[in-house]
């Protein structure tokens, strides 16, 4: 990602800020510097210790920097409500500090409150100075919309992030792909994931790209890639499922069934019954759905819901069961 371009300084020779916006930027930098210094001072200590120390300081004076630091310590301890409360207080005291809004949006997302994450993410956007900052804000907004199942605004926010930083990040490609799948933008999804794979060479993006091809019924294009992957791996189930979906699409059902049974046996040997891997469990459900075993597929889906599995993992299984 390119580093932010320097903004041209004021023509006045003075080093003093000459307008409120500049003052805000300088103050913001000062706050970040203070936060860095303070966080390092306590960096060797555990977050419990930092909470105690910062609470002691805050009893004598309400400082937004200390509130921000305490929020970070609370977040590390998983006390997200307390973290959010501190960030709200910090923002009241210093409303123009970008990191406070970003942190609050992240905390709200981590608390599964996507609607409450949107407000700080939108406020943060007004304070951004660089393409990188704006892109991160857009992705936070996209994540918030996505979690509240609003694929269209989420996709729009993703595209705005890519407009700022075209290379993007692996996670941005994945988020955009999920929205495109939900909206049925199959061709664009394939193209974008392929671009992401060519830029980042991530094995994860490759797997999603192949899934996108299958979702768009491009079975012949997907098969050679799948066969290449299957030629050299210890565990094959996820790619056997991909191949079975292709083979079914091409009316080669006996071969598809063979792959599915092989995959099912492998998953059964790997799946930990007391703490099942959600992706393996979802794969098992998909196999049952493809083998027309709806009861077993439903059972997998029930288990996935019990362990609060994210929607993108269950989406394919849900749509297959609806067919």
């Amino acid at each position, binding site marked *: *990602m390119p*580093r932010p371009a320097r903004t041209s300084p004021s023509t006045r020779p003075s080093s003093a800020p000459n307008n409120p916006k500049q003052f805000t930027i300088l103050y913001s930098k000062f706050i970040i510097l203070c936060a*860095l210094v303070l*966080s*390092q001072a306590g*960096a*060797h*200590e*555990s*977050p*419990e210790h930092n909470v105690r120390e910062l609470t002691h300081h805050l009893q004598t004076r309400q400082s937004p920097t200390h509130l921000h630091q305490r929020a970070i310590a609370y*977040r*590390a*301890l*998983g006390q997200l409500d307390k973290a959010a409360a501190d960030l709200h207080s910090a923002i009241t005291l210093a409303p123009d500090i970008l990191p406070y809004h970003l942190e609050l949006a992240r905390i709200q997302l981590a608390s599964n409150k996507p609607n409450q994450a949107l407000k700080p993410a939108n406020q943060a956007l007004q304070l951004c100075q660089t393409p*990188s900052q704006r892109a991160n804000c857009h992705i936070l907004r996209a994540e918030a919309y996505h979690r509240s199942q609003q694929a269209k605004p989420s996709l729009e926010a993703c595209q705005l992030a890519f407009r700022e930083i075209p290379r993007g*990040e*692996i*996670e941005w490609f*994945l988020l955009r792909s999920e929205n495109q799948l939900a909206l049925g933008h199959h061709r664009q999804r394939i193209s974008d994931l392929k671009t992401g794979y060519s830029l*980042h*060479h*991530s*094995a*994860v*993006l*490759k*797997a999603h790209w192949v899934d996108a091809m299958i979702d768009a019924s491009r079975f012949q294009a997907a098969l050679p890639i799948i066969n290449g992957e299957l030629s*050299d*791996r*210890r*565990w*094959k189930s*996820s790619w056997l499922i991909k191949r079975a979906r292709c083979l079914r699409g091409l009316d080669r059902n006996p071969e598809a069934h063979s792959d599915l049974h092989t995959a099912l046996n492998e998953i059964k040997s*790997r799946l*930990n019954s*007391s*703490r099942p*891997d*959600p*992706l393996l469990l979802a794969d098992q459900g998909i196999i049952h759905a493809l083998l027309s075993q709806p009861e077993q597929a439903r059972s997998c889906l029930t288990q996935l819901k019990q362990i609060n*599995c*994210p929607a*993108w*993992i269950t989406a394919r299984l849900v749509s297959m069961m609806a067919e």
Partner: protein
Amino acid sequence: MLFRFVTRLLFVISLTCLAPGLAHAEFSRAPYLQLATENSIHLVWRTQAAIKPVVHFGTSQENLNQICREDQILVRRTQKDKHSGKAPPLHSAPDNTFQFEAQITGLKADTLYHYAIYEGTTRLTPDDGSYHFRTHPEHGKKRDIYLWAVGDSGTGSQMQKDVHQAMINYNKKHNLTLDMYLHVGDMAYGSGKDPEFQANFFEIYEPTLRNTVCWPAMGNHEGYTSKGKTGIGPYYDAYISPTRGEAGGASSGKESYYSYDYGRAHFIVLNSHDLDRSPSAAMAQWLREDLAKTSPEKTDWLIAYWHHPPYTKGSHDSDKEKQHIEMRTHIMPILESAGVDLVLGGHSHIYERSMLMDGAYDTPTTAENKIFDDGDGDAKGDGSYQKSPGLKPNQGTIQIVTGHGGQGLRRKGYSPVMKRSILQHGSTLVHISGDTLNTKMLNYRGEIVDTFQIVKNQAVTPSRIAKPWQPGRPSKGKYIIPKKAEWRYLAGNFAPKDWTRPGFDDSTWKNGKAGFGYGDADDTTELDMQNKYTSVYLRKTFKLQQPTDVNHLWLGISYDDAFILYLNGKEVIRNGVTKGQSENATGIAQHEANNSFEMFDLTPYAKLLKTGTNTIAIEGHNHAPTSSDFTLHPTILRAQ
């Protein structure tokens, strides 16, 4: 006269230019190795001026007959210094920095090469035989592997240097050569800035880095200035990590998590600090892909490491902090179902090492039915840990917290899965030979204070122990040295040099009953220390009846302010004394006895003890002569 002066001046200048040690000073960051594969390696270095470098290399020190030319060497600069070219700019570096990254390709596998960096015909690296590298063996080739793992070391302190030197001395003594160096994060305190990397990492480890690849995991201190998501920052300037599976494994697309093969071992490096650690996030998806690609035909051992360990009660508590909890809850199930053997972490400033365990994902961590073998894993002790050959799922993992590389040590408690919890600076040495993985904790004085083995030579069906051995202070036991026992003591003078050794003549010392001290009305033997002296020395012998006694001893001690404990002449525990011994002890911390006895596990030092007579020696130190109190009251307990 002027002529003679100029001649002498020219002579001195010519000597200066020819001296190899001074030529070396032209590097602002000395050459170090990065990203090695079976047929390639990266060499990185910095200068403060533009040079036209050439790397000469070859399999003989005398005949560096191959060349990596200038046009094959990447040059990176900061944007401020008008960086150009395809390579990403440096995030930060001193003005006028040139970072050179030479990728040497076309090499033979598992082969030792010597190298030299030249500018034109001028050799910049000294010709002392220490500039060399070895390519990785072919994936799947049977070959011994020897590695050094360190964490939380980048302080620039003498302790960091001592830990490093202890490893160098140990290897020299045992004629060992490192194959790789694993750093589990926090290598550049306080915030991972470029000058901190230079002073606290590159300069201190320079003799090792010039001939050993460091494979890093990012720590939280590097995270202040480097971001795992973007791969930008001084950490990412310093290291070249695989993103496309160059050294084996699946392509991660990011330098912040990656994997590599070495012989029959597969190594996985994760980012526990600033990336999404959930099981559905990109990092966990990549991990599954990587493990699915790990060939069982070519791989016998699986080792993973990152900064925040899944289990610790050192300076951090893995039952309270999110990063630890998420790595344990989300990542460990994936790794254990793939048959991981060893997991290394840092962050917590302590050495902790688990029993052979599996499936302990709950919070708080419990050990019941999660332990397969609650022995010490020492072939000469309770016996090696046993696993089936190859990578069998859920056959047991050993967890090591190796966050004791230089930063201040601390313990909050005892994790129920840990067999060892040692507050000593040091590092971890891992030696894999065929079906055996042998690990040692080497302390900063060069002593081995923990060792265990995993052996995979026969099929094993692990069974879970309902109530495994529990670490922590013993609930009951028998005093070997009780409270208020009689000791020999020396007060008011410094002890002679050999006062800790068995057989030392302490007949001129006084007899007294513990505790020793003044103030607080908690001492049996009152001392006239206040405003006079700050150190007191105690000696005593004690007998152990059974050979197994050595594995069950605890020190119970009430102390104010600090002490150093010696067993049979060897220092074993140091609490509140930063540096030195006896009259040279410095950095004395303040500590209140509060009429309580703190317990210290002596089982890691069992090898220093024997059946029959043993000698215990303790030096107690007061923070200041003016202090209002002092207490030193030791006991030895045999736990039941």
